[in-house]
Structure formats: structure tokens, C-alpha cells
């Protein structure tokens, strides 16, 4: 290995260790402070378990909604020409740019008890899902969009000349080429959703057993001076996120081998 490469690798490993790996390892280590029995009791405590199931369930639902809606939005942005397209392009990124607590405020103002639309989703699980949909909107759109832009239109024309109708062309040609990007966007949206705090904290009302998400549960454990319990729940989130990301990586490798 050349000297430059070794030095570069050293810097990367040290940086990643300091910023990501050591803190994560510390959380996992801390979660075992009072033994595996306590770890298990912490995550199966009724409020923690409810928060974890709500978070993972709502995130999975939101990820699926994103898979469909994000692909449709990307499609319209790439394939259709209409006035205001540039504005729409910018709006897509807004959930990335906005502090999530602001997103929470906006949602509460629009869908809270004083809703001008007469739709009150405050303190309900629907409100949680809505908040997660808001913050994860860009992921699938932004992963699918570049792939769709690059997609060879002549493939579709070739399929048509070979006798495929529009639906067959979509299912047999377009969808398989978009699928890796769609799935990786979905996995990113999912991992983002399970970690969400700011946007859900206002609209959900944080009712234990009903609308409290895992991140808020962790926060309340810490406030109750139960750092080991907080670390245990964090570890579960970490593992779920890791599984999602590894799945994503495998999917991408699969896509590349085919590509």
C-alpha cells in the first residue's frame, strides 16, 4: 500500500471511530451495564415496548407510502413538463432544510386542535405517521430521480416496437431498472423515520402506550435518570437501522451486478 493511501485510510478510520463507532459502541456497552436481564426488562417494559412497536410499525408504513408516492413524484418531475415544475423541485427538498421542530409546529397549526381545515390529528397515531411522512418525503424522490433521468428512453421505444403495451413496458423494463433506487430510498426513509424526534414531539402529544415514539421514550428514560434503560432502547433502534442499511447495501450490490 502506498504511503498516501495508508495515511488517508488512517484519517478516515480515526474520524469514523471518533464520530461514529466509539459513541455507538459506548451506547451498546452502557446498555449492558446492569446485565442482559436488565436490558431485556428495559426493552420489554410496557411503555418502551409500545414506543418501539409504534416507531417501527409507523416507520415501515411511512417507508412503504414513500416507496409508492416518492416514485410517482419523481416520475412526474422527470417525465412531465408543466408550469411550476421548478418550484415543485425546490419544495421537495424543504423537509430536508427545515428544522424538524418547525415541521412539527406547522403540522400542529394545520392539523391540530385549532385546525383551519377542521382536521384534528393531534395526539393520534395518524398524526405521528403524518409527521414522519413529512420529514421523509425527499428520500425516495431524490434517489429515484437521477436514475429515471439516466434511463435510456430508447429501451422503452424498443419494448414498444417489440409489441409491449405501456403497462408491460413499465412492469418489464422501467420498474426493474428503478427498483434498486426505489428500495434504497425506502430504506433511507425508514431509518430516518425510526430516529425521528422533533417533528413528532408536538403533534403526537407523547402519550405513553398511544403516541409516544421511541426517541421520545428514550428522552423520558434519561429524564427519569434511567440511562441504562435509555441505552438499551437506543441499541434496539441501532440494530434495526443497521439491518435496514445492510439490506440496502445487499440490494445495491445485486443491482450493480445486474447493471
Amino acid at each position: 500500500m502506498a504511503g498516501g493511501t495508508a495515511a488517508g485510510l488512517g484519517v478516515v478510520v480515526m474520524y469514523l471511530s471518533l464520530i461514529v463507532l466509539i459513541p455507538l459502541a459506548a451506547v451498546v456497552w452502557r446498555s449492558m451495564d446492569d446485565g442482559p436481564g436488565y436490558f431485556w426488562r428495559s426493552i420489554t417494559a410496557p411503555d418502551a415496548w409500545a414506543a418501539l412497536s409504534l416507531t417501527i410499525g409507523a416507520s415501515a408504513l411511512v417507508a412503504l407510502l414513500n416507496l409508492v408516492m416518492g416514485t410517482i413524484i419523481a416520475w412526474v418531475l422527470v417525465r412531465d413538463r408543466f408550469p411550476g415544475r421548478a418550484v415543485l423541485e425546490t419544495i421537495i427538498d424543504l423537509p430536508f432544510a427545515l428544522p424538524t421542530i418547525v415541521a412539527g409546529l406547522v403540522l400542529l397549526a394545520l392539523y391540530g386542535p385549532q385546525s383551519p381545515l377542521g382536521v384534528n390529528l393531534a395526539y393520534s397515531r395518524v398524526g405521528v405517521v403524518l409527521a414522519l411522512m413529512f420529514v421523509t418525503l425527499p428520500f425516495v424522490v431524490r434517489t429515484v430521480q437521477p436514475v429515471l433521468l439516466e434511463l435510456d428512453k430508447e429501451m422503452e421505444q424498443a419494448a414498444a416496437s417489440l409489441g409491449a403495451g405501456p403497462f408491460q413496458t413499465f412492469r418489464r423494463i422501467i420498474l426493474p431498472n428503478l427498483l434498486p433506487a426505489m428500495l434504497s430510498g425506502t430504506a433511507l426513509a425508514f431509518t430516518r423515520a425510526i430516529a425521528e424526534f422533533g417533528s413528532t414531539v408536538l403533534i403526537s402529544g407523547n402519550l405513553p402506550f398511544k403516541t409516544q415514539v421511541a426517541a421520545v421514550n428514550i428522552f423520558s428514560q434519561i429524564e427519569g435518570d434511567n440511562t441504562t434503560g435509555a441505552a438499551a432502547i437506543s441499541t434496539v433502534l441501532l440494530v434495526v437501522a443497521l439491518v435496514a442499511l445492510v439490506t440496502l447495501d445487499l440490494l445495491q450490490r445485486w443491482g450493480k451486478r445486474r447493471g
Partner: protein
Amino acid sequence: MAIEVRDVNKSFGATPVLRDVSLDVAAGSLTALLGPSGGGKSTLLRVIAGLEQPDTGTVRISGVDATRLAPQRRGVGFVFQHYAAFKHLTVFRNVAFGLEVRKRPKDEIRKRVMELLELVHLEKLADRYPSQLSGGQRQRMALARALAVEPQVLLLDEPFGALDAQVRKELRTWLRRLHDEVHVTTVFVTHDQEEAIEVADTIVLLAGGEVVQSGSPGEVYDNPANPFVMRFLGPVTELDGNLVRPHDVEISQDPVEGGSSALVSRVVKLGFEVRVEVEVGGHEAWVQVTREQADRLDLKPGDTVHLRPVPGARSLVLAV
């Protein structure tokens, strides 16, 4: 007639691309649409395939009015310059695509695809993905894919345009032989006059969105309709206000009847042929002679020679 195009007009925005184009393609023929870039030849091919809609005019394929028919219902095979390979499918599945869409039985598909892959010499690469093939192999795959559905006409849009010179020459010869075997009515677009002359039975010259001339390669080469066609189909030079082929000029040391005197400015030996550059009547011209002729005349820069068209030479009077 396999294809009858009548009075087709097509504009992209305000730019007319095809103007009153009419064209007949005989069943079983191999026709080249030849012309400079922007001449409208690709657009005409896409109109025949149904990938573009003409503004006015009609297209009939095998006697049926296809003007408003969707591409998938025209019985047309299309081969694109950049292959348009289905990159998520193997070579086998690419070729099988049209048959799978038609829901043919699996055994039949397998048999037909393997036959076609043998025809295009890709039988050993059936399980590869397009990204693992060379350009020439991809184009042969695309050709097999188009032939799989037994199209009434096969349309190729600059099929060899993206390949390097060597592969291009090989595929040209191979396309000609393939056509002699398969006999499907074929139309291909090219801007390479050598390719058109070598491969096609009929050449249709398109320029500025209009058909300028059509006929067999020999007819078009020997009787060009205008100076543009003559220039486009091969080398030309100017002699006494006439456009002639440089190989149709006689060169001698002694004055000849009807000849004009010229000053040799440069002699370039290109293997077998020798290019003699001269100054005649105040402008530059050139003559193509054989090596043997050049040696016999012992041509050197500064020599005075006499030029005249050989008997029977084709020439066109240039408008002054």
C-alpha cells in the same frame, strides 16, 4: 410494396424536418436512407416505425394504413444506434422479450431464441448481461431481438454508427449476408455513402427533409441528379466548369484535343492510388491515377500536364 410513404410532412416546433416525402420500399429489398446529418433520414425511419407521428401524410406497411397505428401493432423491428439493450436482462431474455410479451410457449421461445443467437453468433453469450458485451455484440443482440418477432419490416437507425471503423466494416458485410439469408424487408439509415453503396440494393438520398434521388447504388453514383448528390456519393473535382470524378480524368504530357493545361503542385502517393494535385485555369483540382501511370508519366511538382475527361466520363455542368 412493403412500405409506402406518401406526402409526409413533419416539423419539430417551427423547424420542418420532412417535406412532402414519398417513398416506396419493395418487399424483400435492402434500402439505405442516405444523407447528411439533419437531413431527416432518422425522423423518416421513426415515422415508419410509429415512434414519431407525421403532421400530414400516410404510411402503409404491407398494404395496411399504419399512419395512426401504435408502434407495437405495426409489425416493425427497430434497431437503435445505441443498441437500447435491456440492461437488466440477459442476452437470452433480451432476445426473448418480444416472444414473452406475446405469451408464446416456453419451449418455442427457447428454440427460437437459440436459433437467432446462432444466426448472430452469440449462442455462447446467452447468459451474459449487455454490460458484459462489446458494442458489436450488443448490436448483433439488438438485431436478433428485433428479428425474434418476425417483423414485416426491419428498420435500423445508424446501426453501426457507434462502433469503431474495423467492427463497422465487419458488421456491414455481415448484415448484407444476413439479409440474403433472412430476406426480411430492411431499411437502414446511414450518413456513410460507402456503407450505403456496399450494403444496399436501393439508395434513397435525403437532404433538407426532401428525397433528392433514389435508385440502385450504380444508378445514383453514375447519374447523380445534381452536384450535391455527386459530391455526397464520392470524390469530385472541378474541370472547366464541370464536376467530374477524379478517376475519370485523363492526364498526359502532350497537348490533347479538348484538353486543358495544368500545373502539377503536389503528388501524394497513397499506396496503390496516387493523388495528383494541380492548378488548372486559376483554381485547384486533383486527379486520381494509378501508381503505374504516375511512374510512367514521371510526375513532379512544377510539371505542366494536359487534362481531359476520359471518354464516357460522367460529369455535371456547374451553374456559374
